[in-house]
Structure formats: C-alpha cells, structure tokens
C-alpha cells in the first residue's frame, strides 16, 4: 500500500512501527496479565506526539492528517492493541473538542490533550435501550446558567484515567434523541463517580468502567440539542480508527500464523505446504488487505474534509466481521499451541473483538449505510 502514501506518511508509519517494537512489544504480554495502566508508556507516546496526532499545531498538536493517524494506530496495535486503544479513545475526545469546540474551549483543553498531560474519554453508552431512554439515562438540566448531568454511562473506555470526558446527554427526556447534546465534563467535577474497573476479555491495560453523574457541572460542546449529528460523526471517525486497530491485530496474527505454519512439521512437511492451511492464510490475508484499503480510503476522506459517515460505517461493518473471524482461523492454524496462553495468538484472539465493539449494537452501522443508499 506504500505507493498510496506520501513520504511523510511512510516515515510516520515506519517510526510508529519502530516505536511499537521498542516500547510496546517487550511489555504487551505483561500488560495483559496485570491489566495495569501503562503510565510510563503513555508518557513515551506523548513525547513522540502520539497523543496529539491530528490536533492543530497552534494547540501543540502534530497536525498530521487522519491517514497518518490511522497508520500509527495500526502499527501500535500490531504490538499492543490495549495501548493503541488508550490512544484511540483519548484522540476521539480530542477530535470532538477540535471539531465542535469554541475558540475558548479549544484553547483551554486542547494543549494539555495534545501533549498527553491530560487524557480524554468519550461517554456514550447507557444501560437503557438506547441513549436517552431508561431510568439511568444521562439527563442534562439547566442550573445556575449552565448545565448539570444526572445519570449513568457504562463501559466508558479510559474511564478513571481520563481527566476530561465528552458526555452525551439529553436535555429533554420526552424528546429523546432530538434533544441529545454533547457536553464537556472535568473528571474532578463534584458528583462524578467512576465505578470499579471492569475486567474484560482483552485490551486489559485499557481501563473500562461505568461513570455515574450526580448533578455534575457540564459545559455544552457544540450547540444544544445538536448532539445526534455530532455523535454520528464522532462515532464514524472513531470507527475508522478502531478499524485500523483491527487491521493491525489481524495483520500481525496472519504473519504469526504463517511463521508457525512454516515451522510446524506434520506428515513430513511444514503444514504451510498443505492446501488446507494455504486456503486459510489466503482468505484471511485477502480480507485483511481489502479491509486495510477501506480503512485508508475512509481516513483519506476524513483528512480531506469530505463526507465520510457512510464509508466509515462500511469500514466498521467489514472490520467487525474481519476481526474475530480472522482470529478464529489464525488460531486454528496454530492448533493446540495456539490455544495456550503462553503463545501470543490467544492474547490476539482476546484483544481483537475489543476493537470492533458497537456503541449501539443494534442500530449502527447497517442503518447508516442503508440510509445513504435508499
């Protein structure tokens, strides 16, 4: 794919790969075992500008395009999808502020996010049927010239380590999604409580927790009641970055399985000589190749400021199928050894599904795609 990339993008890709090799590879297994938040690595990421990818230079960001960002995410994910996930969720919050924030909000929040001095998170999912519905929905009420939030967000990525949350709440429960509004909330705000860290299948070093809001002060991001289109675009941009993660994990898994197949001898030959294995490798790498092109096409649309939500939804749909289905096959190649937690494949198997979680599993992305076609 390098012929599609500029010189800068190729250099960024190479540097991200070198970074992943040097700093992430040695600790990926340990991070997965302990689930400990890799604070030192986050500092290292910051020093390489990997927490302010596409943010404007005037706020301390690197101002590289979304394609470079996706390339970096893919490379980091090859070594540790958990660490890459911390970056992706943080960057999603930064994207929101950069895209919809006022000049004051950008000046106030972006520099610290760009430098990694503060981390971000986006809180969307709720226990109820959909955002704004159910007794625990996050409702925003006006108070003292501003807003306060009450309710619960669940499974928030980066919860507990984030300093700043982008939170979606409804100003009018009766109006539902039509009153959805994006807010900025400081982690230190009174009444904000982060629940116990969730134990997850994979991506263990990336914290996940519920966040409860009790009269928590919040400032509007964007315009009141304009949260639905904001959420749609934000989730779409996030989907592309997450799909880059999936491609990174799957790409590495294929290479790992191929190497194994060349070394494992059965029936007098390396199993890579058998058509059964060749078929599996061919299918998985083909799907990965196609997914990768789709990711970078969508990333290029974002970089060029073109409409991208349909393409992002397609990328998400494809990546979701690609992820676990590929790992089912690559682990199969490695047989009993692949099933052992002492080999790397089992960890990749557990990580990959975490890269393609749907925020509202039953609505997006098929509906988004269909809406644009019919």
């Amino acid at each position: 794919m390098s012929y599609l990339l500029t010189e800068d993008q190729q250099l960024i890709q190479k540097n991200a790969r070198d970074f992943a090799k040097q700093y992430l590879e040695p600790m990926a297994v340990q991070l997965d075992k302990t689930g400990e938040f890799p604070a030192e690595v986050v500092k290292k990421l910051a020093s390489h500008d990997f927490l302010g990818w596409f943010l404007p230079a005037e706020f301390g960001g690197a101002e590289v395009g979304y394609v470079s960002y996706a390339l970096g995410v893919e490379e980091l994910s090859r070594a540790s999808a958990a660490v890459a996930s911390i970056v992706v969720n943080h960057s999603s919050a930064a994207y929101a502020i950069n895209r919809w924030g006022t000049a004051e909000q950008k000046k106030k929040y972006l520099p610290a996010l760009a430098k990694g001095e503060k981390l971000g998170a986006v809180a969307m999912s709720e226990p109820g049927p959909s955002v704004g519905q159910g007794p625990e929905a996050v409702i925003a009420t006006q108070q003292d010239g501003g807003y306060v939030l009450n309710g619960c967000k669940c499974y928030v990525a980066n919860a507990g380590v984030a300093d700043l949350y982008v939170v979606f709440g409804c100003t009018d429960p009766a109006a539902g999604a039509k009153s959805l509004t994006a807010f900025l909330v400081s982690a230190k705000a009174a009444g904000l409580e982060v629940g116990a860290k969730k134990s997850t299948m994979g991506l263990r070093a990336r914290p996940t927790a519920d966040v409860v809001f009790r009269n928590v002060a919040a400032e509007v991001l964007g315009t009141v009641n304009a949260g639905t289109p904001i959420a749609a675009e934000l989730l779409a941009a996030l989907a592309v970055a997450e799909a880059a993660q999936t491609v990174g994990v799957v790409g590495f898994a294929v290479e790992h399985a191929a190497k194994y197949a060349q070394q494992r001898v059965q029936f007098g030959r390396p199993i890579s000589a058998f058509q059964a294995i060749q078929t599996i490798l061919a299918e998985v790498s083909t799907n990965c190749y196609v997914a990768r092109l789709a990711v970078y096409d969508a990333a290029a649309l974002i970089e060029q400021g073109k409409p991208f939500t349909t393409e992002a939804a397609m990328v998400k749909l494809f990546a979701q199928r690609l992820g676990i289905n590929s790992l089912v096959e690559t682990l199969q190649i490695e047989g009993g050894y692949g099933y052992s937690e002492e080999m790397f494949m089992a960890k990749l198997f557990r990580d990959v599904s975490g890269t393609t979680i749907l925020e509202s599993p039953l609505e997006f992305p098929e509906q988004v795609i269909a809406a644009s076609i019919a």
Partner: protein
Amino acid sequence: MILTPEQQEIQRLAREFAEKHIIPVAAEYDRTGEFPEFIIEAAKKADLLAMGIPKQFGGRALDAVTQGVILEELGYGCAGFATILGVNGLGYYAPLLAGTEEQKKFYFAPIVAGGLSAFALTEPAAGSDVSAGKSTAKKIGDEYILNGSKCFITSGAYAKMFTIFALTDPSKGLKGLSGFIVKGGSPGLVVTKHENKLGIRGSNTVELVMQDLKVPASQLLGKEGDGMRIAMASLDMARPMVGSQSVGIAQRALDECLKYFSKKYPDPRKLGQAAQFKLADMRIQIEAARQTVRHALSVKDAGLPITMDSAIAKTMGSDTAMHVTTEALALLGAYGYSHDCVVEKLVRDAKIQQLYEGTNQVQRLVIAGQLIASIMPKATTAKAGR
C-alpha cells in the same frame, strides 16, 4: 428427532445438575484455572461418570443419544466442566471397544467408584499426524516398558485410569501402534506441565512423560498393532459428544442474548429487525447442529458405522458454536466483552471444540476421504452398491 419422555427427564436432571453445581462457580474456575475437584464426587452421585459403561460393570449403560443430551446440558453450564466429564468417555471407550472382560473390569471399576479417565495419544510432534508419534513400548518378559511424552492430555493430573498409545514396533509406523490401559499414579508416569489455556480453563490439560513406565502385558488392548484402529474407533465415538457439548455452548450464548435483551428492553418487541433476524439465524443454526449431532448418536445406537456422521457432527457442532458465540459477542457490545457477561467465555470455550479430538481440518479429511472413496473407479465390473 424427538426425545422420549425418559430422555426428557434425564435432560431436565442434567440441566438441574448444571444449574446447581456448575453455573454458580464456572466463572471463578475460568478466572483462576483451578481444577474443580469437587465435581468428580458430585458427578458420581449424579451417575454422570460412567454413563456409557455397561451395567455389569456398575455403569449406567445409557444409549449414545441420551449421553449426548446430558453433555449438551453440561456444555450449556460450562464447557470446561463438560470436557472433564465428556473426555472421561473418550478414555474408557478404548477398553469398551477392544478390552477383554478382565480389562474392562480393571478399567471401569475405579471410574465407577468415582474417578476420571484420560486418553493419551497426542505428542509434541504428533498432533494431526499420529504417525509422527515417538513413544515406544518395548516388550520385556511379561511386561511392556513405555517411554515417551504426551501433551494436551485432558485430566492427566487427576485420572485414575489412562488409555495410552505407544509404538510396539516403530519400524511399522502406524501399523506398529498399540494401546494400553494404565493405572494413574503408576511409577514412571509423570505429569510435567499444566497448560494455561485460553478457554475450558476449569479442565485440566497436561504434558505427561513416560519414563520406563512398566505396564503388564495383560494390559495391552487387543493385539500389538491394533492401536490406531482402537484410537480412531474411540474418537469416532467421542466426536459426536464434542458436537453435543458445542450445541450446549451455542444454546447458552443465545439464551444469554435473550436474557440481556429482556433486561435492556422493557418491551422486547422494540428490538430492531436486524437484531431479531440475527437471533433467528442463531436459533436455526443451533437446531441444525443439534439434530445433526443427535442423528450421529442414533446411528451409533443402531450399531452402524459412524465414522462419516461422527466427523460431520463434530465439525458442524463446533463450527456452529464458534459462529453463534461470536455473533452473540457482537450483539452484546461492551457488556458482552466484559466479565459482567459470560458470553466472552463462551467464545473462548467454543474455540477449542474446533481443535481437539481431531481438528476440523482432520474431520474434513475424513469426510472428503469417504466421498472420494465413493467415486474411485471400481476394480471389477460388479455393480456399485450404496
């Protein structure tokens, strides 16, 4: 296929057993990887250890379909636990198929008394390729001395009885493989490693080393050279059981989705059509797999050759479990990915079903082999039968 009232009652009891003994603790054993030793006694009390052992040896002599139904319920509870109890069968099938009356008595007694059995065929260099096995059995006087190593052996650290395969005549390759029944704890039979696995973590999986393991000649199953035939016949019987267990895993995944949606949607009809169709597809696949597995088991009960149906049942069951559990994981989003939900465990438990007791690639070799054999040109002009 419709279950008889007796089978339905046994199914209900098995479901109760899973709900009482397995489901409440499965997640914790999965987390720690500790072996649930208590289940051996509980299974003995519920008569689940000797399901296929003939009555004259104290077993329950259940037909294969009924055994499969039980395993489906145990798999529903936890595949790790089901593997412990299911592989028990794989261990004792060998003496059941090829043992003398004394050998059967010798092998079955400790199982019936409340013990596990293990089946030791796989070696580090011999996974799908059994012929690459290196373990040897040298006859000296009236005993065999076994040397070699086996890996990925279920219940190896806890089994009271083992069925072990080794080469009595290495120069003959597979035709020189023999099967032995060995008492657990025999000197020279050493557990060297416990596997840390992605799933079925409650099940014990070990590496075994045989160092001058002395086995009386009376414990040779059949004749020297019968080993491959006995091993394959045992696996033929066990494979539909893997299929059954897999159907249980898949059914659990579907039920967990329904449970989740009943909580999340006060009015479940509000569940979108796309999601409803996904649930319907899961149900279709589970039923198809269930009936395929039960068919293979009923062919077994009819005393007919089962190699083909057994391979189909194992493949269909395990592929279905893998597909249904991953669909469920996608449907349940972040909740499904967390340990608040059992579905991510079901995905991990489903994966091994495609691998052990013959990978699904080996199953396809078996099936394709039979298909190809059916279209081979005949040597004579005799009319081709079906």
